């Protein structure tokens, strides 16, 4: 627990820095990963092997003219990127980056995460509406429908892990994975939950193949078409940090967070695995999931909005609910490892 105001400020600054650095690293990672998948090199001029590219982009966006369209609703137009950003920042609190490195270990950690992640929808709808632009409005409507629908599936997948653990507290969830990650211990239902979770969070963060809202070949840029300069940078950054956060949540719930790869009570093996620092485990797992999500983007075509919603309501949700039932039975009967 954070005790004094000074400590609060310092931790706050740490979170903001982490936020910024993560944004930089993820944007660069996306560009390099996409480039190598497309038989090209990606940014390699600015800085050593192109690593200062995002920094250069940030500086460019900072000095750019922030244009507000004529008929736009000024208050909402200016407020929208901040809401999206705040939704992403608040989620940094309950995630443990390493052993004993959790900023706020509240007793309803998982509930907090699912609740706060719904705030960014408001920001997106505000952005689309206040831009006074038909394309933005269409994009925002699509995005709003999509995010709200897929939150249900993501929630169901998260709940199935909570059932296995018996607690909403994140540190409890990680501690319960000391004998092995839930993905392996919970076998079939956990695997189904994991797959549903990955699909749902790809949709929640508006990533391809669910990126109808910002489909470049149709609506130019969807709900953030009219944004330029720092406000656009905030949207952009918030999107990538959101990806990091949902992958971090996936890694925490299914892959053990900072817990090294343990197998049951093989004490010797577990002890060996403990040599690798917990922060490396955490970031390794998270970045692996981020890589998978980026892989999706550059492989699959886009789903149409009605196909997207079909997928959620007719397939993912029923499967998720059935899986929840399965998981409950397994938890009660103790049929997991």
């Amino acid at each position: 627990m954070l005790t004094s105001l000074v400590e609060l400020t310092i931790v706050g600054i740490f979170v903001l820095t982490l936020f910024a650095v993560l944004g930089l690293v993820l944007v660069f990672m996306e560009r390099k990963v996409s480039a190598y998948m497309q038989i090209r090199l990606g940014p390699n001029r600015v800085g050593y092997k192109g690593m200062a590219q995002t920094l250069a982009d940030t500086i460019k966006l900072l000095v750019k003219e922030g244009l507000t369209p004529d008929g736009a609703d000024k208050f909402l137009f200016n407020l929208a990127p901040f809401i999206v950003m705040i939704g992403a920042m608040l989620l940094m609190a309950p995630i443990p980056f390493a052993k004993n490195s959790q900023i706020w270990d509240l007793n309803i950690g998982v509930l907090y995460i699912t609740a706060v992640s719904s705030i960014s929808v408001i920001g997106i709808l505000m952005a689309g509406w206040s831009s006074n632009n038909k394309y933005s409005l269409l994009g925002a409507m699509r995005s709003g429908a999509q995010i709200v629908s897929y939150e249900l599936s993501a929630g169901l997948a998260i709940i199935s892990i909570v059932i296995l653990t018996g607690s909403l507290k994140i540190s409890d969830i990680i501690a319960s994975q000391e004998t092995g990650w839930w993905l392996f211990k919970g076998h079939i239902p956990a695997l189904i939950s994991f797959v549903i979770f990955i699909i749902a969070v790809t949709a929640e963060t508006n990533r391809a193949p669910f990126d109808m809202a910002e489909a470049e070949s149709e609506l130019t840029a969807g709900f953030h078409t009219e944004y330029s300069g720092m406000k656009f940078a905030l949207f952009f950054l918030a999107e990538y940090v959101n990806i990091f956060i949902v992958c971090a949540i996936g890694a925490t719930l299914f892959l053990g967070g900072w817990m090294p790869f343990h197998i049951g009570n093989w004490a010797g093996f577990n002890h060996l695995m403990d040599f690798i620092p917990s922060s490396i485990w955490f970031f390794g797992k998270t970045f692996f999931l981020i890589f998978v999500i980026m892989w999706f983007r550059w492989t699959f075509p886009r789903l149409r909005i009605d196909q997207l919603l079909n997928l959620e309501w007719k397939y993912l949700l029923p499967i998720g609910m059935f899986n929840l039932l399965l998981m409950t039975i397994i938890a009660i009967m103790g049929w997991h490892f």
Partner: protein
Amino acid sequence: MGDLIINVGPQHPSTHGVLHLVITLNGETVKKVEPHLGYIHRSIEKMCESLTYRQFIYVTSRMDYLSSHINNHACALVVEKGLQIEVPQRAQYIRVILDELTRLASHQLWWGAMAMDVGAITPFFHAFREREIINDIMEQTCGARLTMNFIVPGGCMYDLHPDFVKRVKDFIVFFKSKLSEYDEMVTNNPIFQARMQNVGSITKENAISYGCSGPVARAAGVVCDVRKLSPYDVYSQVEFTEAIEKEGDCFARYKVRMKEMNESMRIIEQLIDNIPEGEFQAKTKAVLKLPKGDFYSNVETARGDFGVYIISEGGTTPYRIKFRSPGFCNLSALDHMARGNKIGDLVAIMGSLDLVIPDIDR
């Protein structure tokens, strides 16, 4: 909410060229599509009235720039018809091989652009990597990568480069393996199929009534390959099947073009080892004067039936040239195909029509 009227283009990432579409929407459903043309109208037909019969071919390369050899071929055919020129066998073989290579290159670009429109961005780069090989072969033999102007009335402008045969054979072997990769990456992808099947259907009668030709019509079941119906050069001597599908939707058009790529490779394989020795250009006068009258000739470009109609008064320049472009009629069917579909489908339909706007606007 009443009807929303949206302008797509002329500057837009997914209209293939400067096409301005005025779409009337009801929510996400398209009610009417009105193409507004003319953004790249360069008065080519009027320009040709002051160009000689050797010069006007250069301008046609720039119309449907992805099938530039084939466009030039059509012009050469009509002039040869007018002047009763006999084209030597070697030139005929070379012309057909270049045509088929161009068709392959055009379909490769179409494939990349189609996948990109639907959202999968990576195939675009793969398609261009393959296309570069054809461009390099063209550069070595013809001197240019896109607007070749190699086919002239009477035959070809120069002889083939000595490396041509070997490079084409290597390319065919390389590309065959890539086509199966394309199938894995895109054709068999369930998301792609869900985006393309039952989208933008057109019946056979409507396809004929709108004047569609090429893969658009063949996907609806219309037998219309000019290479089979009125063969020119050595097409009557090669064996290839026409790719016909029944459904008339986007996926059928996709399948037709993939099959056409296979058939093109088959044609090239039959011809590449048997190019006869001889002249590459018939002896013609320096200044060509078509006799008085009208002459028409059509060929099968990558987009469809391309026709050249010349009215000559007996001078060195034509009185009037009219180009029948395949894209114009294919575009006219867009409204019919797009009604009732969503905006996302509109993009898929435009990609599957394979429009090149300079061909439509001339």
